[in-house]
């Protein structure tokens, strides 16, 4: 009897477990359909800035290394064209070993010569060739190709973030011979080593890719192909998912759109969420009185009830987490208890606002002091955050006028010429990495995108030190010191709330992991469909 029971139990377990196991095993076939809310001006990843390029065109390419597609923090380097790498003892030389037998879509072999030519184009583009991120690679002294399967980067000084900067999703590896003939070729043509080959792009309409049968990573990709549809209107994107004409939109939806899809599709929808590596911050113009006084700037931050704001605004806008200078949940983010010590991050809002009023009085700012807050003419999430902040500042006796400037003119008219008192500013990263995220806050004479227009050599020094140290704990300490000085002691900039990325997608889509960056995980080699 016991044997029979055991056998029955085993059979029952097998019946229950087998489908689950089968479901988790990647299945080949199917076409992934996804809307893309933006379309890039060209196909050149080295030149463009928009996710409209990475979403539909990243599947045609590989990068030297990449961010691990299964890592939810989006901060772990993983092999791609390079199967392994070593770092010299002085931290100034990175040597990458390339996979053998990697073929471009034209059948030619990819070697170190192609990697070198691609990076030379990114770092030192010839006159007339655009490279949007060359500023990030100024530390590279030289890129060498000692043999066909080895690439070496020699740095001017050690850089803790170097691996992640090489894992940039923008740094597509192009063919050296093509670049030698025409540096602009990749602006209008597509030919990489990626898991999908290019079929067609109808401008304003769609991009189609089909499975690369000769892909170097055997067994991948799982999909037969993909179809990216250019759909600007978010309601139309929601309708596409709701009508099951598309599987996923990789950028993100609003909380309301998520709820609509959940209600309409129930179990057919899976929702993945993550803090988003984008944040709206407040630039306070240090050249305008009384904002040159750090007491006034601190008061502006102290007036904000970020925790209550997070609770309310996350219902209606794509913001949620209370954060410092790093995305919560990532390696260099401040723990909650430490964050609460900064001005404007305390849990007791009455105490904070009393302190804000005291500081304003001390700085000679009269009750009812009026100033103008300039905001960018983009509804989500600029508008709700702007309205929220104005309400918060009113509660410490400030009278704030909201002036919305048309989006395309915003940087030219307001931020760059310093034509504002207090204004909304924005930063969005492709990888959460302090070297990339903190550069914006270095002194204005070093960095033209510091719109608050201050010079702070202490901050500059901390930025340099955190970037060069090889000791992880030391780096964390330096970043905490940077954060304290930026947001608390000097209150040069104010952080609002971290954006929150919401991806409701068809439950048929497997193998795709949301990360804080909407520029990552678009190679689609590990994505598959259950049916």
């Amino acid at each position, binding site marked *: 009897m016991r044997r029979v029971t055991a056998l029955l139990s085993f059979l029952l377990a097998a019946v229950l477990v087998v489908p689950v196991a089968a479901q988790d095993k990647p299945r080949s076939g199917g076409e992934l359909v996804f*809307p893309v809310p933006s379309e890039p*001006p*060209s196909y050149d990843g080295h030149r463009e*800035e*928009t996710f409209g390029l990475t979403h539909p065109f990243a599947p045609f390419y590989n990068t030297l290394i990449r961010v691990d597609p299964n890592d939810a923090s989006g901060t772990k380097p993983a092999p791609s064209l390079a199967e392994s790498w070593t770092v010299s003892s002085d931290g100034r030389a990175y040597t990458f070993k390339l996979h053998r037998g990697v073929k471009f879509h034209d059948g030619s072999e990819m070697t170190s010569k192609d990697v070198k030519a691609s990076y030379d184009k990114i770092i030192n583009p010839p006159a*007339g060739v*655009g490279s*949007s*991120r060359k*500023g*990030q690679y100024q530390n590279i002294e030289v890129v060498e190709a000692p043999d066909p399967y080895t690439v070496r980067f020699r740095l001017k000084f050690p850089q803790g973030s170097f691996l992640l900067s090489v894992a940039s999703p923008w740094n597509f590896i192009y063919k050296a011979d093509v670049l030698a003939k025409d540096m602009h070729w990749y*602006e*209008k043509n597509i030919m990489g080593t990626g898991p999908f080959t290019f079929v067609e792009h*109808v*401008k*304003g*309409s*769609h991009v189609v890719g089909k499975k690369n049968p000769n892909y170097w990573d055997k067994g991948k990709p799982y999909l037969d192909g993909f179809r990216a*549809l*250019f*759909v*600007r*209107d978010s*309601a*139309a994107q929601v*309708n*596409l998912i*709701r*009508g099951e*004409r598309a599987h996923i939109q990789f950028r993100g939806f609003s909380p309301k759109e998520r709820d609509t899809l959940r209600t309409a599709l129930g179990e057919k929808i899976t929702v993945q969420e993550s803090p988003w590596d984008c944040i709206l911050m407040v630039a306070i113009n240090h050249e305008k009185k009384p904002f040159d006084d750090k007491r006034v700037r601190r008061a502006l931050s102290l007036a904000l009830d970020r925790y209550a704001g997070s609770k309310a605004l996350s219902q209606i806008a794509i913001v949620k987490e209370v954060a410092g200078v790093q995305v919560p949940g990532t390696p260099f983010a401040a723990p909650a208890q430490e964050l609460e010590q900064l001005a404007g991050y305390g849990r007791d809002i009455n105490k904070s606002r009393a302190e804000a009023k005291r500081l304003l009085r001390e700085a000679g700012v009269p009750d009812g002091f009026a100033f103008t807050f300039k905001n960018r003419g983009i509804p989500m999430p600029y508008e709700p955050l702007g309205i929220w902040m104005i309400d918060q500042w009113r509660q410490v006796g400030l009278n704030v006028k909201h002036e919305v400037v*048309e*989006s*395309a*003119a*915003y*940087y*030219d*008219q307001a931020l760059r010429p310093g034509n504002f008192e207090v204004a909304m*500013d*924005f*930063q*969005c*990263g*492709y990888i959460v990495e302090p070297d*990339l995220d903190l*550069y*914006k806050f270095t002194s204005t004479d070093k*960095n*033209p*995108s510091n719109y608050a227009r201050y010079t702070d050599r202490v901050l500059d020094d901390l930025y340099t030190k955190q970037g060069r140290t090889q000791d992880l704990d030391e780096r964390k300490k330096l970043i905490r010191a940077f954060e304290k000085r930026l947001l608390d002691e000097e209150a040069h900039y104010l952080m609002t709330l971290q954006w929150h990325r919401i991806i409701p997608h068809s439950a048929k889509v497997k193998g795709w992991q949301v990360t804080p960056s909407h520029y990552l995980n678009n190679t689609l080699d590990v994505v598959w469909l259950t049916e």
Partner: protein
Amino acid sequence: MWKYILKRFFLMIPTLVGVAIIAFLLLRIVPGDIVSARLMGAGGAFVTAQMIAEEQAKFGLDQPLWRQFATWLWGLARLDFGRSMWTGAPIMEEIKLRFALSLQVAVMATVVATLLAIPMGVIAALKQDTWVDYTVRIFSIAGLATPSFWLGIVIILSLLIIFKWLPPMVYTPFWVDPWENLAQLIWPALAVGYRYSAVATRMTRSAMLEVLREDYIRTARAKGLWMKLILVRHALKNAMLPVVTVIGIEFAFLLGGLVVTEQVFNLNGLGMLFVESVARRDYTLTQALVMLTASAFIVVNFLMDVTYAWLDPRIRYR
């Protein structure tokens, strides 16, 4: 008649030159340029002043305004609109891609509107102040009060919720797959055509009422002429003058003015291209689209003038 047509034709040229000057200057007055729109996508933390200056030089934005204008005008005179500053592709290629779709929606909406408006307008006029007239009036006033994009949203949501079906969101040319093509475009054509028909119905009704009170209609009736013949040969032809005007202007408007409706139905048409080119400060493309839209209005006006002359022979003698 030919003298009249030639006169109208040559009047088009100074109008187009005026449009070119206004389009060029207005775009330069608006703050911001394509370089900002392109480099500031993610906040532009690593964008230097030198990078901005280099990009501006590449687009010729560092040149004096008069030179930029002269270069563009010279291109226009040779029918060369140049290249889009955003994509670098020839402008004619960008427009050609979208023109077929916009033209088809405009034609379909015009057909829908005309098929609804003329019979309804005529019947309402003939049955003035009866329940038929009231019904037509309610229908047309509702059409005027309903924005096309809102009706579009209602249509899409109704299809989704009631029939669990969504129209295709990617354009397929009619000659490739007529069914797929119509399945996508019939809905925007209905949404736009309804509002368009409302305007034309009211115009047809009031023009018919006016004509039906004319002496020559009374005379024709008194002669014992068959009512259908009076209507078609005498009343309708004369009542069509203002209706043709409305239909013509609306048609030209539909070619480039369906911005929100195109957004709702995700149509890759000229309206969306127009808005995107303005938002990106793509001067060359925006200028070309302004010229195209202005030309459409001017040509439609010209054709309407010719039609007037055909409908009312007195016009050509002035």
